[in-house]
């Protein structure tokens, strides 16, 4: 009797467990967000990224194909192993349908490997490394917002053409920094310029003065900052303090509006940078920014806008094909043009790169800035092909078809 009860209870438990699993996978569309929520890059997307994704879901009515859309979010602490294992866990246990990837190229490369193993579409947004659609590309990866190639083509070519021919790089010593430096150096050399030297500074360095003095001693005209977040802020602040900005022109190879805001215009004025999106471009971007500001009390960065767009485009593709089947959705995404407040006529190339318009900006002087967050003026609008080339990256195995 006892034995029978036990078996019965176990059976009931098991069927209940199976049912709850099916519910998780069947009744909902699950979008995951794995990002730096607490470290040096937390202002770039962070909670604002989750908010932007939720705004896209709300704009589509909250349900797609009769299924409720939910967002899971976790902090990867800039550690590739945490990002990859959380992605695997969600795919196995929570019925994850799509992943939004935040900052850090190293983490995103690790997560791309999980995307292909688990067949989950992966939108790399905060990470910049161009290898995500090159040597590290997968059939399920989409590099959505920007990449190091576009940053180099934007900022470096604008500065070389204005006469900044000799460069010295201060580079963040990991995958992102080195890829960014390579991309910029290629552009400098192709336009008849010269790279006089480079120094690799460990991630999270607070005092850049030693590196900056080396840059100054090189006699280069341009100080290329191939870093991001607080690394970028601290190196630019140091360059100002040591008077290096008087003899060298600083180039921000990756700067977000959150960085400019925290540096203030006094320090950042005159800086060239390349961005995929700016809140004050047109009425559509301003409308989005206004809604975002009401919730987050700051203007959105380009990658927060991309979080919105990626979520919107993914869910629209699901609606069109009538299923969350990863292969069908990926095929639809690669076929359709992307038109929303983030970009016009964007498209996803064979290697997974979303090709779209990029903007070379210059940071305004305090006198030019007329209202809060009025920080950029457009120097040049680059077509997607101009930013990223017209051919898919040959290093990617998907490009050869």
């Amino acid at each position, binding site marked *: 009797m006892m034995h029978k009860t036990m078996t019965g209870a176990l059976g009931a438990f098991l069927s209940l467990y199976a049912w709850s699993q099916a519910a998780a996978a069947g009744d909902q569309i699950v979008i995951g967000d794995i990002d730096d929520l607490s470290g040096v890059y937390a202002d770039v997307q962070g909670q604002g990224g989750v908010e932007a994704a939720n705004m896209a879901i709300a704009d589509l009515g909250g349900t797609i194909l009769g299924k409720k859309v939910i967002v899971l979010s976790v902090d990867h602490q800039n550690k590739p192993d945490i990002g990859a294992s959380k992605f695997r866990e969600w795919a196995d246990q929570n019925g994850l349908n799509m992943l939004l990837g935040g900052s850090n190229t190293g983490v995103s490369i690790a997560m791309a490997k999980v995307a292909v193993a688990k067949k989950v579409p992966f939108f790399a947004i905060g990470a910049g490394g161009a290898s995500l659609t090159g040597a590290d590309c997968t059939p399920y990866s989409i590099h959505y917002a920007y990449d190091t190639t576009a940053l180099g083509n934007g900022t470096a070519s604008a500065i070389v053409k204005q006469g900044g021919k000799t460069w010295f790089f201060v580079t963040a010593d990991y995958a992102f920094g080195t890829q960014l430096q390579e991309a910029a150096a290629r552009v400098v050399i192709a336009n008849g310029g010269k790279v006089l030297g480079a120094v690799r500074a460990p991630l*999270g360095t607070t005092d850049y003065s*030693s590196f900056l003095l080396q840059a100054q001693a090189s006699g280069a005209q341009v100080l290329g900052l191939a870093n991001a977040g607080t690394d970028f*802020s*601290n190196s630019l*602040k140091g360059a100002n*303090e040591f008077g290096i900005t008087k003899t060298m022109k600083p180039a921000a190879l990756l700067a977000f509006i959150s960085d400019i*805001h925290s540096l203030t215009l006094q320090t950042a004025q005159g800086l060239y940078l390349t961005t995929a999106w700016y809140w004050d471009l047109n009425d559509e971007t301003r409308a989005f920014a206004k809604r975002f500001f009401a919730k987050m009390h700051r203007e959105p960065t380009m990658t927060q806008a991309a979080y919105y767009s990626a979520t919107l485009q993914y869910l629209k593709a699901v609606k069109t094909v009538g299923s969350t089947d990863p292969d069908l959705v990926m095929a639809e995404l690669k076929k359709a043009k992307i038109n929303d407040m983030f970009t016009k006529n964007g498209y996803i190339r064979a290697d997974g790169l979303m090709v779209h318009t990029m903007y070379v900006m210059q940071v305004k002087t305090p006198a030019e800035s007329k209202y809060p967050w009025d920080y950029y003026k457009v120097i040049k609008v680059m077509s997607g092909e101009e930013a990223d080339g017209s051919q898919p990256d040959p290093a990617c195995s998907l490009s050869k078809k």
Partner: protein
Amino acid sequence: MTAVFGVPLPAILGQLMLGLVNGSFYALLSLGLAVIFGLLGVVNFAHGAFYMLGAFAAYIGLQFLGVNYWCALLLAPLAVGLLGIVIERLFLRHLYQLDPLYGLLLTFGIALIAEGIMRGLFGASGKSYPVPESLQGGFNLGFMVLPIYRAWAVFASLTVCGLTWFLIERTRLGAMLRAATENARLVQAFGINVPLMVMTTYGAGVALAALAGVLAAPVTQVSPLMGSSLVIVVFAVVVIGGMGSIIGAIVSGLVLGMIEGLTKVIYPEASNIVVFVIMAMVLIWRPTGLFGRE
């Protein structure tokens, strides 16, 4: 031109100068840690957080309360030091009888909470604090231009280090403090209020960290993580100098700053680990540190 390791001499001199600047910050921070460990036996992992709070106190003062830099140099350490005293009263003193590990865990938790609160209020990318008007510009030393502010930071931190050393090693109050660490009950029996002394010492150590934070505010981005990236290096400095040794903390802070500066020209990629390599070597040869007592 003369060269060392293939690096021209002016560049070496420049890096040594910058190393001295960083070293003086290390010295000031490790001094506070050494005082707290030496007199309380607490491994104060929240030291980096107090440094960060000092910088933020200066920023908040300037932005919202109209407190200028010079007043902040006095007020910010005072405010953060008072916070330290509250923490000592409420939490830390219950742990003195336990294994030092408990103090470490508590202070580590406090550091995480402080960072989280500041991130919630000001964001992860932090805020800018301007260099005060009167300290802008630089001296031309021939081999480099030294910003006046950095020279001031070295001067201020060395002065404070010297005063603290004098207070603890050469005055009657310092003698009582040192006696209390040797045998608290005996000192208490002489009618000295030991708990009050311990509390003030912790507050003073915390205030030193906050002072370093105010000094650093104009040169680095004031951000919630500015302390946690520094505190590990500072711990290594204290271990190298000898846990609890005042003079050890000051000297090894300055020397390690300069060694780190040289590494930044010779092999930049190793600049964030050179201090730890030296720590490992010191621990092998002199487990009590360079100035430590058996």
